[in-house]
Structure formats: C-alpha cells, structure tokens
C-alpha cells in the first residue's frame, strides 16, 4: 500500500497573529511553525497503518525551504520519504493541482491530509484533489481501517457520526481521534536526516484567488462582572442589554 500524507507548515496554535506591510503580509517574525495539527493526525494514522499492514508513507508539502523542519519532523515520526514542491502555497486550487500531478505520476492508495489547514481554514484541498483524480474524498474522518482494498471509516457529521466503507484509492481529510499524535524519538530524528527529500518545481500556476489585505478583529469591550450571589442579574442583562435571549 502506498500512502501520501500532505502536510502544511502553519503558525503554532498559540501564535498571536499580526501583519506587516500595511496589513498585506503575515508577520513571520518570532513565529514558531508546526505541522498542521490535523495533518499530524493524518500522519500518525499513516504510520500506524504502515506498522500494522506494511505500507510506504510519503510526506508531501507545497512550500518554500523554510518548511523543511516540519517535513524532517514528519520523516522522524516514521514517514519513509518526502516531496516538497518548491512554491508558496498560494491557494487551495494551486496546492490541489500539485498533489494531483504527483498522484497521477505515482498512484497512491490513500492520500491523507488534515481536514483543514489552521491558517486559512479552507478545508478544500482534499475535495479538489478527489475531483481532479476522479476518486472519492471524505472529510472529516475520525477512524480509518484498511482491509484489503476496502477502507472502513467513521466521518463526523453535524450532531453525530457515520460509518462509511469505500474502495481504495481515496482522498481523506483527517481529524482526531483517528490516531494519537506521535512524538519523534532520537532514532527517528537521526534517520530522518538521511531519508530522501525530493524537491520539485510546481506543475501549473493556477491560482484562482489572492489575498489583497488582512484585518484584525475589533477588540471586545471591557468585561462586565456580576457578583455570584446576584447571578440572576446576568439573565436580565442578556435580555435587556445584550438582547440575545
């Protein structure tokens, strides 16, 4: 079985987001970049499947050289090799095009990624890749087992979940609790240094969207504190002042 795991390099979840250049550029200064948390779940499950069933796991990233620490960490966690498309991930369509190009050349049984990246929260790439390759896409997947050529999955839906079966190949957007995040061990970190990382040039240049500028949300007003022994006042205020109930 061949598994492709697509990962994003994104600002750590605790990052205070700021912009520079008159709100036209994300301010990378002092920002710690991490593997997308959802992508990390996808990778962890891929490595588990490899250990259980035997599989090759290739990490895939569209990004510039500064994404390499994230890629090396994925290799340290247990992926076998990696591909980096040397380009800024401009938009979902562009990224999907890169994944589809690689998957057309080397067919994969499973293309896994997070349900969404935590920067643009688009959650589009898996669906567009599925469409480009003419195969099903499913998201958000919270359980994945493979028996022969059948994948058995659980997908979260509004207010519940459903169990799904489908034939490989598939594109899946993953989320917890599909697997526990893995932390690389020393041996993994050592071997990751010599695992192959192929750098390729982008196929196609189709970006269909562009960010013109950014804006920060208006700060919330000061909090109005209510003494605990007058808690019922809150309900009155929610009705008469905030007018939400």
């Amino acid at each position, binding site marked *: 079985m061949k598994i492709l795991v697509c990962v994003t390099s994104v*600002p750590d979840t605790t990052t205070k987001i700021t912009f520079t250049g008159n709100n036209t550029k994300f301010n990378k200064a002092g920002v710690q970049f991490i593997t997308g948390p959802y992508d990390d779940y996808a990778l962890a499950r891929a490595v588990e499947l490899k250990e259980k069933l035997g599989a090759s796991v290739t990490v895939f990233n569209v990004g510039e050289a500064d994404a390499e620490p994230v890629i090396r960490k994925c290799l340290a966690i247990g992926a076998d090799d990696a591909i980096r498309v040397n380009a800024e991930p401009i938009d979902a369509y562009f990224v999907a095009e890169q994944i589809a190009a690689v998957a057309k050349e080397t067919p994969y049984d499973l293309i896994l990624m997070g349900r969404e990246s935590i920067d643009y929260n688009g959650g589009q790439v898996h669906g567009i890749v599925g469409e480009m390759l003419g195969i*099903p896409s499913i998201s958000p997947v919270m359980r994945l087992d493979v028996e022969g050529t059948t994948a058995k999955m659980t997908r979260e839906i509004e207010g519940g*979940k459903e169990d799904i079966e489908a034939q490989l190949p598939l594109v899946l957007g993953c989320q917890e609790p599909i697997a526990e995040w893995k932390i690389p061990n020393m041996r993994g970190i050592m071997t990751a240094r010599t695992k192959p990382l192929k750098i390729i040039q982008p196929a196609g240049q189709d970006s269909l969207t562009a960010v013109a500028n950014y804006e*920060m949300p208006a700060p919330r007003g000061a*909090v109005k*504190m209510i003494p605990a022994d007058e*808690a019922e006042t809150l309900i009155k205020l929610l*009705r008469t002042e905030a007018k*939400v109930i």
Partner: protein
Amino acid sequence: MSVLIFAELDEGKLKKSSQEAIFYGSKVAGMMGTSATAVVIGAADQSELATAGRFGATKVLHATDAKLNEPNGMAYASVVAAAAQQEGAKVVVLAKSSLGDAMAARLAGKLKAGLAPNVIELPDLSSGFRVKTSIYTGKAFAFNELKADVKILAIKKNTIATEETDATATVENFAPSLNDADFALRVTNTEKATGDVLLPEADLVVSAGRGMKGPENWGIVEDLAKALHAATACSKPVSDLDWRPHHEHVGQTGIKVSPNLYIAAGISGAIQHLAGVNSSKVIVVINKDPDAPFFKSADYGIVGDVFEVLPKLTKAVQAL
C-alpha cells in the same frame, strides 16, 4: 446568469444557515443586476420550498431523485454543477456545514472556481470581486480577490442577518443525469443526536469544561441549555476524557461556532478554545478563578462556583 444558491434541508425544512445563504445570494444577485435561484436536493413540500422566496430567491430548482435522499457531497456537487451550467451561474453560494464543505470543494474542482471559505460579509464588486473571510480560526480576516470566472462563496453561519418579505419562489423540477461514480461510498451506520439543538446551527450555546469535575455533573449544564433552548458544548479536555462526545468539542481542533450567546462554565479559556468561539456575539464566562484568561475575552463574567451559579441562572431563565 443568475446567482445560484445551494440550500440544505434538515428533515424537509430549509436550514437556518441556508436561509442566510439564500438571503446573501439574493443580495449579491441584486448587486450584479440578476436574479437568485436556489437548488434544493431531497424530499420537501412545495410550500416549504416556496419559502426560499421570502429570503430573496425567485426560483427553486428541486432535485428529487430517490438516490439523492441521503446527503451525499459528491452527488450533490454534481447536481449543483449541472444547475450552474443550466442557469449560466457565475456565482455559487452555500452555507458552511459538513455537507456544504464537502460539496464546495468538489464544485471548485469541477468548475475550476475560485472558492472563498468562511465568508462573513457581502462582496465588494467595485473593482473585481473581493470578499471578506475569517482566517486563522477567527483570529483575523482576509480580503480575498476571486479571480476565476466562476466564484463559490461558503458563508459562515450566523454572520449574515436575514430580512424577510412575503414573496414566494416558483418551484421547478430539476432532474440532471446522475453519475454512478458519485455513489461509491457506502454508509453502513449513522448515529445522530435527536431532539437536541444541533451545535453548529445553534443561536445559543452553553458550554462547560473540566471545572465540572466529571461527566456525572453535566445535568446542571443541560438544564440551563434546555431552559434557553441552547445547544450544549464542551472544551477539548472534556471530549478527550470522553466525558462528552467529540461532536460537542468546540475550539481550534473542534467545531467552530458563532452563536449569538456563548456561555462558558468552568473553562479557563486557552487560546485554542477561544479560536473556536471568538466570533460569538456575546460571551459569558463563569469560573471560580478570577484570573482565568477567558474573562479577558468575555462580555459578561461571574467569578463563582459553577455548581451554585448554573442552577441560579436556570431558575432565572425559567422565571422569564
């Protein structure tokens, strides 16, 4: 070249988020000097479909093939793509939801469309097509320029205030040919909470965290939610501990909500939790720790014991 809106049904009724999408789509149609057409898939009464007119749609295309009775993102995307072609639509609008997300991406692939997710305002058409979206899980906004010929807008729930008129929409049957490949998934089991207010659609949310000390204490959270007709939610540690189901977990890696009122009881307010709730209109925080960071992001706060405060609030709501 009308604006096309996909409107989602829940048990035969148009979902509130889809009414918002219809209203949004009709406003865009107005800006573009054209009309708004809604596509509805699955069984529903004609009279219910005609209510799309109240939110601005002039026409409803209704696809009723029995194969479409169960929601299916891939097949539904194909139906909407066929409708877009028939209507010559250059703008497709839908509400963000489990189904809407699955459809939007497949549609973008089919139509080679520029897709804006998490749209929170009407577009600016003064030069090109620019639309404001929520990014970094609500920590910032981006103004997206959609450059493709076809544009898809996925509207974030509860960010568009609808207005209603007495108009009704005409309903036309729509029966595009279906593609077998779109039915490749076999759903073997579905578990869905019934009777409760669904969290992603809820106007009011009562959420609780580890401060509740254990799943057996959730009764007082549910009582307040019931009194308010609110949905219940929880923080990540609570769902990790299996005190509550995962579909109730709000936060950076859970459900993102934007209700009118979010009440957080016994949640300290880690930045990852705030990311999932910070676009709520009004936030109430109840915590016994006066230094809980959540108070800084709240509109109303009570420093106190949740086990005393929540029942008091429930009583006050019941007395309204």
